[in-house]
């Protein structure tokens, strides 16, 4: 039991990145409004990050503040901003919203009602940042019995045995700190980097990203010994631990 009434956790969310490329902010806001009117549901209450790294001139702090207010009027919630780390504006420590570290982003396709002409000097580009969200690890402390099936979206750690006739699946890695006698399928959604580790390899079947091996084949390599299963060039490699 804990005395705390809250819990602090890390989380990764997908947001819209607004790359500012010119200083004509009024024009940007106008164009953005037009875009939002075409697909209002896409931007509704959307969290947004202002990115100044593509801006070659310096943006004054009051202009930046005005931009935040204008974006709020459009229904966008500015949650932070970022800029080129070597080319920070002089006021970077005074900004009212958090400054975020730079990272890679890729352009995404926005559902567009119909393409409209944009003036060449003002370009608004929306970039959505997407990262692989790490899934929580599942830890099992009781034996997995024949006929039982356990699936983890992340890694799966089993502190005891997996009986013959049982099946364990994970999108990530599988660790078995006991005998692995049933079936183990790691990288169930196609992650070829996933691995299987076990204290005693006696499995009916091991599989990584759909590439599998049966017990007859395993017996010839490692049997009833600690082992790991790795996928190398579409074939399973069984090595002692």
């Amino acid at each position, binding site marked *: 039991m804990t005395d705390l009434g809250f819990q602090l956790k890390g989380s990764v969310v997908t947001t819209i990145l607004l790359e500012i490329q010119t200083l004509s902010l009024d024009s940007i806001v106008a164009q953005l409004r037009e875009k939002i009117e075409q697909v209002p549901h896409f931007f509704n209450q959307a969290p947004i990050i202002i990115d100044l790294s593509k801006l070659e001139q310096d943006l004054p702090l009051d202009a930046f503040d005005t931009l935040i207010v204008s974006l709020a009027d459009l229904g966008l919630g500015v949650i932070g901003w970022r800029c080129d780390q070597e080319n920070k504006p002089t006021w970077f420590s005074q900004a009212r919203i958090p400054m975020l570290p730079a990272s890679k982003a890729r352009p995404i396709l926005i559902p567009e009602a119909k393409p409209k002409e944009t003036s060449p000097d003002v370009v608004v580009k929306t970039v959505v940042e997407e990262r692989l969200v790490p899934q929580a690890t599942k830890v099992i402390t009781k034996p997995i*019995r024949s006929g039982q099936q356990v699936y983890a979206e992340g890694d799966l750690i089993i502190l005891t045995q997996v009986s013959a*006739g049982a099946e364990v699946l994970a999108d990530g890695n599988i660790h078995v700190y006991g005998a692995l006698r049933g079936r183990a399928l790691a990288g169930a959604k196609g992650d070829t980097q996933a691995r299987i580790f076990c204290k005693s390899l006696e499995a009916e079947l091991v599989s990584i990203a759909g590439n599998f091996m049966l017990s007859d084949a395993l017996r010839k390599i490692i049997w009833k010994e600690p082992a790991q299963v790795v996928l190398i060039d579409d074939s399973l490699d069984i090595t002692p631990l």
Partner: protein
Amino acid sequence: MAKIIVVTSGKGGVGKTTSSAAIGTGIALKGHKTVIIDFDVGLRNLDLIMGCERRVVYDFVNVINKEATLSQALIKDKRTKDLFILPASQTRDKDALTIEGVQAVLDELSKEFEYIICDSPAGIEKGAQMALYFADAAIVVTNPEVSSVRDSDRILGILQSKSRRAEEGKEPIEEHLLLTRYHPERVAIGEMLSVSDVEDILAIPLLGVIPESEAVLKASNQGTPVILDQESEAGLAYTDAVDRLMGEERPLRFLEIQKKGFFKRLLGG
């Protein structure tokens, strides 16, 4: 509150009813008021093993359906004080058992008895699930051969996922392994799994090992629980198992191949 113990296995013919009769009798012999319930509706056997088949008038299903009271259906054992049997119905099937009905009977028995032994039918379907649903402890009867061990493993999974204790998130059912029909000679030549093989696969504490014995068949045919035959190894092994169930320490015996005695060798026996 009574302690509810299910005797189960998954596989049929491994010795569930023999073990239920022996262990129920053993507990009653220690002075605890005990009832053994036959959950094998449609394949009634416990009454035969207990030698009370001619005294069955009402059964478990009659009580569930309120066609008879518990006191009408309970059969008092003639040999062992403090021991009662609740026979199964031979003319009905497992669908006659309902969670509410079984619970009502167990609740009523709990007021009067210290131990309730539920003799489970084979399989993992309704009858077996009803027998284990309310259990506090389970005795998993296993023969030293691969299919029996596999089925016991399956039933252990069901004990930990489909019992009331599991569903209500309470302390899990206490598990005991009872290895029956053990044949040390066949283990030695690799025809049978050894005690340690089975323990390794099932990973639950060992309650006892009952050696294969002619006394078991003889006792069944006579309608006497084998535990009452204190001349036989099986009877003694069951007594040890009951002692362990009650928390006493008993060394395992009858696991070694019996050497011929000096006189037997001398006389060429």
